[in-house]
Structure formats: C-alpha cells, structure tokens
C-alpha cells in the first residue's frame, strides 16, 4: 500500500509476552526518548492555544523570513508569521487524526482477528482474502480518490486510512491469536468450559498486548507521515490553518532565499516519527542493537603442550581440554580422552554435561563467545587448539567431519541435494562437475539410499528425517575424513529409523576404517555402536574404558545410575516395578562444587567427597573419578533391576 511502509508491520521478533515486563524494558535510551517526545508533543499540542507566543495568522511583513531571533525562536515565514507558534498550533491536527487512524485500524483489526481465530477456517478464509485484496490496493491513489469523494477533512481521511491499515494489523494479529489458542493451557481452559469471550479476554488479548503496542507505535508514525504527505500536496487542512505538511510546502517555495525555514518543521516531524519507531523497537525488545563483533574467541592455549608420546594407532588425543564462556563459567574442564584408528568412542551423559561443547571444539566450531581456554587436541601430529580459522578450514571435512543433531535443519533448504553434495566434492576431491555428480551418486548409495536420482533432485524439505540424516552423513563423507564426530545422530529420529542409521554407521566403520566419536545420552546407542566409552558429568569425565567394561561393570555411581534409569528391559528379565530416576539435576556451569560434582545426587557421598577427586586408573586403560566406586555389593542401592546388558539409558 503506497506510502505505507508495511514491512514495518511484519511480526516483531518478540514472543507474545508479559506487557508489563516489556514496559520495564522501555528503559532503553530509545524508549525513553520515544516516550518523552511523544508525551511532550501530545501535551504541547493540546495546550498550544494557551502558550504559543503569537497568533497563528499574526503577520509581521517587516520581519518576514527572519532566521531564529530572540523574538522568534524558530524564525518567521514569508508573511512574517512565527514558525514556532505555527508548528505547535498545527500539532494537534497532525497528532489527533493519526491517533484516530491507529484506533480505527485496531478497532477493526483486533475483533476480526479474534473472530477469525475463533471460528476457524470458514470465516478466516473469507476475512483473509478480503484483507489480502485491501493490501493489494494502491493506497495513496485510493486515498486521493476518497478525498475527491468526501472532500478534504483530515479526520475523515484518517478514518479511511485506518480501514486500509486494519488489513496488515489483522494479518499479524491473526497469526498471534491462532498461536495463542493452540497453546495447551488455553485448550485446557476451553475444555473446562471457559466461554469464548472469557478465553479472549483472559488469554488471547493479553497475549497480543505486546505486539499491539509495537504496531500501534509504528502505525502512528506511518499515519503522521501519510498525513503530512497529503497536506504537502495540498490535501491537508486548508489555509489559513497551518499543518506540518503545509508548512513544509511553504518552506519549499522559499528554499532559494530562506533555506532555514525547512529545518524546524522537518525536524519536529522527523523527531515525531523517529520517536514512534524508537518506542516500537523498545517495546519489541530489540535491544540487541549492535551485536558483538564476530570475533572468534579462539583459544590462546596457555602453554604449548608438547606432543604426547602417543601410540601409533592413536588418531586423536585430547588432553586437559577446557572450554569456557568468555568472561563466564567453564563449560568443560580438563577433559582427556583418545580415539584410536577404526574405533568408535561414545561420549555419554545427561544434557548440560559438556558433551556437545567437547565435540564441537574438535572442529573449532564453538558458538560465538565460547572458546577453548586450555589443553590440547592432538590430531595427526598437530595441535588443533590455537589454530586460526584459516588453518582449521583444511582440517574440517578433510580430516574431521561432523554429523549434527537435527538432520532436518542441517541441510540448506534453498539448494538441491545434488548442489549441496557436488560443491564440496569438487572442492574436497578436486573433481570436475560430471565426475562430482557420479561421486555424489556413489556416496548416496554408500549411505544406503536406493532412489539416488530422486534424492539428488530433491530439496531438503522433501526428505524424511532419516533420509536427510543419510544425506548429511554422505555430505560428511565427501572429504574422506579420518574422524567423524556424530552429535546425537539419532535423537531427532523415529525409533525404527534410529536403528537404521546406527547400523549404517556400524557398516561405515567396518568398511572404511573410519574413527567415530558418538555423542549421546542414549546408552542403547552407545552399547550398540561403541568400542570405548567416556562418561561425562558436569563438564568432567567421570569414567572411561571399553564399552564392555564400563557398561557391564560401572564403577562410578553416576554411570551406574544412568544404567539404572534404563527403560529397556532385556529379554527373559522380569519387568521392574518402576524405573529408577536420578534425583536432582546436573548443576549448571558456574555452580560446580569444588569436590565431586555428582556428590549432591550420589547415595554414597561422604564428607571426603567435598575434596577434589582425581581420576584413578580403572578398567585397564580406562579411569574413574570416584573415591567410593560402585562394587557388586553396593550396586543394589542404585539398581532395582540388575540386568547385565543395558540397552538404553534415559536422561535429559
């Protein structure tokens, strides 16, 4: 719609929230400025007749076109009339009708949105089509035609503008109202017999309040601009009544000899619109103005650790790895583990234990503001810690590759599968376009895709979750990496698909001699796939060893408890009365105790556990971090069903 910058009305990025909390967020410089200026303007415009120094029409031809003087603070116009007086005398006829337009827009938009959200598809289709047509009309021309029909009356014109603006208001509010009605507690209230009026009054309207406030501020600014534009071309309040658009039109006629005249009205008008927009931004909570510069908080590892004397078959050796938030808590502390060629290591633990951060640090792909702050990651004879982005790039894909948690969002939705595979294949394998296409098809076949041609031509949204994860795995294999980091590779998938992906990974390990690190909270996945296991708790490794040792003879109470929380019961075992859950939650980073971090949840904890607990050798090459390790005799305290071979653990 013509002069109306509708995009200003796109749904604010805020969630429907507590308006009161939002109002407190107004204490940003922009919010304070917006509120103060608009309040000042409102009061000044309503009281203008009481205080303006000169009459609106009072001429003084001898002082015409003077700049700012002591008598005329903002100067005078071509007829010697006082500009300050005229601006504020014209304020109400600008502010008032604009407010009216906003009221009309919401007066139509809110009830329509509530009705359409409540009565569902039939009414909604009708109203939505109607507003769509309203949105597609050339607003300025229509308003001019309306002026032709009803004459020049700012209030009536703004009522009509309000009708046009109700279309975008309706569109945004309908989405909000629908999403609020879908919430479970609103559903529950309706099932319990809360009437439709009450539902709207109690849930929907309060939920819309923030967005309504944002929109109101934006629409006010838009209405002021449109009104001024119309007055500028002569369709505003008629002479002798001043209006902002008219004052600027007057000034434009004198721009040769008195350019100053442009300034006062233009600044007041611009300040008013800026104030409205700043207020809208402040309510929307767009305080993230100025994101931090994208500095990669890459580690300057305190001291270069010398290359560990590793055995030849060790591919990756992580020593004393520490990951922290910049100026914040430590997320991963002193983690050490090694991965041998062709073996699969499982990193296990509840959510918030630092598994994913550990895994991502192996590729240098930590989130902004998080960095490796100590330790080393030796891979193929060099320390990946402290490498620059440029130095890391050849490692990613070619040496270490990643499979992410959410296959459905891990592929670029705008490019076909073929495009997403061929680019990396050409870059990583130096293949030509045609050759790359063949390799892409081969890779897809390798990850068990039968209908290769169709998948190559598909876009990610056309694939199922399992299919997308296969494509992601194929993508990870394009650079023929030596190490694959799989971060919860099956968590987002259906149970049957999980099994397929796991067996695919197993086959890949067997066929290609790939090493894999699997991050999982699912002990079933680990038992199924892994040769070695490292159990993490609160940023530390608490137990490690071969999968058989750790899962069958857990020594750390946390490992034992995870196994006890396992919902899967092996065949020929009586179903336990109830599963054991681990009481409490993982302490948040920054709240870790100085001693054993599991102590508060551990049935065996004693006073000695308040001391820092070192890792001690266990399970052959493995280790455990506990001074009261679980033995066959004490295991019963944790497990109310003791089966030797756990399939799946539960957590998170």
């Amino acid at each position: 719609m013509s002069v109306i910058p509708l995009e200003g009305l796109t749904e604010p990025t805020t969630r429907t929230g507590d308006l009161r909390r939002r109002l407190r967020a107004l204490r940003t410089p922009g919010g304070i400025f917006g509120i103060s200026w608009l309040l000042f303007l409102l009061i000044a415009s309503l009281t203008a007749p009481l205080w303006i120094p000169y009459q609106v029409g009072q001429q003084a031809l001898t002082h015409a076109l003077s700049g700012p003087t002591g008598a005329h603070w903002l100067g005078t116009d071509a007829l010697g009339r006082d500009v300050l007086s005229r601006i504020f005398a014209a304020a109400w006829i600008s502010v008032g009708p604009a407010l009216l337009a906003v009221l009309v827009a919401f007066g139509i938009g809110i009830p329509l949105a509530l009705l359409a959200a409540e009565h569902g598809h039939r009414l909604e289709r009708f109203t939505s089509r109607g507003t769509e047509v309203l949105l597609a009309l050339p607003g300025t021309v229509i308003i001019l035609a309306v002026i032709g029909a009803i004459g020049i009356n700012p209030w009536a014109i703004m009522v009509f503008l309000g009708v046009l603006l109700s279309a975008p208001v309706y569109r945004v509010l309908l989405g909000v109202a629908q999403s609020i009605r879908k919430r479970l507690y609103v559903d529950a209230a309706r099932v319990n017999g809360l009437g439709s009026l009450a539902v709207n009054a109690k849930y929907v309207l309060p939920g819309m309040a923030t967005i309504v406030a944002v929109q109101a501020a934006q629409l006010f600014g838009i209405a002021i601009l449109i009104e001024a534009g119309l007055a500028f071309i002569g369709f505003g309040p008629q002479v002798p009544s001043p209006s902002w658009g008219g004052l600027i039109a007057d000034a434009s006629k004198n721009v040769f000899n008195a350019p100053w005249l442009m300034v006062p009205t233009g600044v007041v008008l611009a300040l008013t619109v800026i104030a409205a927009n700043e207020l809208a931004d402040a309510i929307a909570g767009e305080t993230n103005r100025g994101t931090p510069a994208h500095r990669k908080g890459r580690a300057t590892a305190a001291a270069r650790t010398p290359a560990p004397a590793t055995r030849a078959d060790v591919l990756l050796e992580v020593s004393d790895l520490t990951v922290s938030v910049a100026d914040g808590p430590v997320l991963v502390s002193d983690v050490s583990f090694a991965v041998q060629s062709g073996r699969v290591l499982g990193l296990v633990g509840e959510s918030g234990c630092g598994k994913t951060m550990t895994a991502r640090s192996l590729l240098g792909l930590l989130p902004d503001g998080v960095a490796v702050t100590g330790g080393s990651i030796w891979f193929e004879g060099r320390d990946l810690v402290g490498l620059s982005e440029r130095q890391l790039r050849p490692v990613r894909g070619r040496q270490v590759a990643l499979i992410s948690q959410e296959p459905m969002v891990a592929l670029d939705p705008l490019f076909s599968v073929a495009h997403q595979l061929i680019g990396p294949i050409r870059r990583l394998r130096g293949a030509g376009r045609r050759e790359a296409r063949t390799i892409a098809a081969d890779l897809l076949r390798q990850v068990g895709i039968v209908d290769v041609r169709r998948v190559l031509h598909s876009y990610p949204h056309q694939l199922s979750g399992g299919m997308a994860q296969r494509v992601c795995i194929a993508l990870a294999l394009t650079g023929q990496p030596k190490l694959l980091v799989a971060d919860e590779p099956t968590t987002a998938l259906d149970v049957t698909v999980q099994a397929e992906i796991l067996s695919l990974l197993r086959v890949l390990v067997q066929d290609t001699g790939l090493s894999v690190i699997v991050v999982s909270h699912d002990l079933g996945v680990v038992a199924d796939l892994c040769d070695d296991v490292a159990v993490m708790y609160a940023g530390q490794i608490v137990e490690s060893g071969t999968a058989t040792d750790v899962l069958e003879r857990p020594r750390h109470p946390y490992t034992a408890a995870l196994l006890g929380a396992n919902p899967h019961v092996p065949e020929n075992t009586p179903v336990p009365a109830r599963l054991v859950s681990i009481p409490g939650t993982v302490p948040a980073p920054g709240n870790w105790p100085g001693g054993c971090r599991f102590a508060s949840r551990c049935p065996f904890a004693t006073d000695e556990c308040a001391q820092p607990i070192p890792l001690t050798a266990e399970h052959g090459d493995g280790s455990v971090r506990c001074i009261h390790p679980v033995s066959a005799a004490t295991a019963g305290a944790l497990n109310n069903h003791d089966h030797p071979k756990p399939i799946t653990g539960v957590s998170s």
Partner: protein
Amino acid sequence: MVAFVTRRLIFAVGTVLAACVISFLLVHATPGSPGAVVAGAGATKAQIAAANHQLGWDRPLVSQFWTWFSNAVRGNLGVSLINGTNIKSDLSTRLPVTASIALFATVVSGMAGIVVGVTAAVRGGRVDHAVSLGSGVGLSLPTFWVGIVLVYLLSIRAHLLPATGYVPFSVSPAGYVKSLLLPVLALAVAGAAIIARTARTGMVAALQQEHIRTLQAIGTPPWRIRYIHALRFASVPVVSVLGVQFIALFGGSIIIEQLFAMPGLGQATQLAIGSHDFPAIQGVVVIATIVVVLTILVLDIAVAALDPRVRTA
C-alpha cells in the same frame, strides 16, 4: 509451479476487479455530477440534467458500471470531462514517469540497502550499531522533506542537477537520467533504510542457521558461506520487502512528483480530483491497481524461484 502461478493470477484479476468496483462507487459517492462539470459554472439545473443524461449518469448504477467495465476491458477508459483527451493515452504517457521513478528508487534503495545491511550483519559491533541508528533515522524522514533538502544541496548550492522537470528518454537519455536522479534519491533514502534493516535481520538470522554450521564443518570458505548460502537465505525476506517497497515508492512518487514538477500519475490524480474529472479518477485508480497487482505477481514468482519450499509446497 503452474498451479501456483494460476492461483496468483486469479487473485490478481480479482483484486483489479475490486479496484474497479471501489473506484466506481467512490466516483458515484462524490458530491456533484459529471454533468455539472461538463455544463460548467453557472449552468441551470436543466442544463446539468441534460448533460448528465447525455453522459448516461442517470442510468442505473449496474448498467453504468457494465458499460464502463466492458469498455475498460477493451482498453477504452473514456475521455476527460475537462479537455476531452483520451484518458488511456494520457495515462500511458504519464505511467512511464511514475514507474521510472519508482523502479529506479527501488533499484537504488535495494542495492544500497543490501550492501549496508549485509555489511552490518557480517561486521557487527560498531558498524552494526551505526547502521541501526542511521536506518532508524532514515526511515523516519518524510520523503518530500528529503526531496527539498536535496534540491537545496544539489541544485541550488552545488548546481549539479536540475531542480525540476522531466526529460523523456527518447528526447535525451542523459537528460532523462539527470531529471530522475533527485526524485529517485529522495525516495531511496527511506527505502534503503528499510531494506538495510531487513537485510541485516535476515543475514543475522541466516548466519545462525544450523545448515551454516554444516557448511563450516566441511570447511566451506567463509565467502561462500556468507555470499552464496547465507545471502540467498536472507534474500527471501529482502525480495518480499523490495516488492512492497516498489509499491510504496510508487505511491511515494505520486506525492513527490509535485515537488519536482514531474508529469506523472501523481499530477494526473491531483488534477482529476481538483477538477472532479470522474472518468479520469477511475482510470488512475485502475492503472495504479494493475501496476501494484503485477508487482505482487512478479514478487510471488521471484520468491518461489528463490525458495523451493514455496515453489513445491
């Protein structure tokens, strides 16, 4: 895709139809009558009635609408009540003026806005802060006021550009460009500010997508991630807003034409309304609606071309 375009076409035709009805009703709601305009000031009631009868104004509304509409479909928008010129040919010389201003303003604001917005998103920090602040001010400035400031700076002070007037492309391509520059720049300030905000938000959101991490994890060069993958992702909202901008700037051009004495649709609308030239008002509304609807159509197709999720849904 064919079904998609068909759906949008039906919507486009429906909207133009709605505009025809609305403009027809508005014209008939206007006090006065074409007969009074034709008969001139001082005409008697009988003279006015005779003129109205000759114009068919006394026939039932439906039959009048049908006559007008069936003519309009055949490309005949009637003649002006004031000077008898053919409305269609008058508007077809005016449309290129307004359309040129709106189109170039969209192109300029699009290019400037995307460069500035993407830079803000990629660089972050102070650059981002400055762009946020600048675009906040830019989109709040009234375009006609910006226009006068530009006239003062570039024409009156610097003598770089003509302050007013329009030179058709066929007369002098250089003159055409020069005559369009000021109105285009005046409109592009707010336009660029809005595009910059959209591009910045879109780019920041794009760079936080999970698929960007997948690309990083296989060692994709940063320029490729930013300017092929993230930019394409961000371009979907930017293109939508660009289309809306074209429509907004088309309306803005109607306001700003007066300042630069451009013989475009704005001038025609003002003249028609000022002189109660009924058929001309209808003609302007219909032409403007067709432009808007075609823009929306092109926009929908462009978004579908960019985003397979829209195309194949």
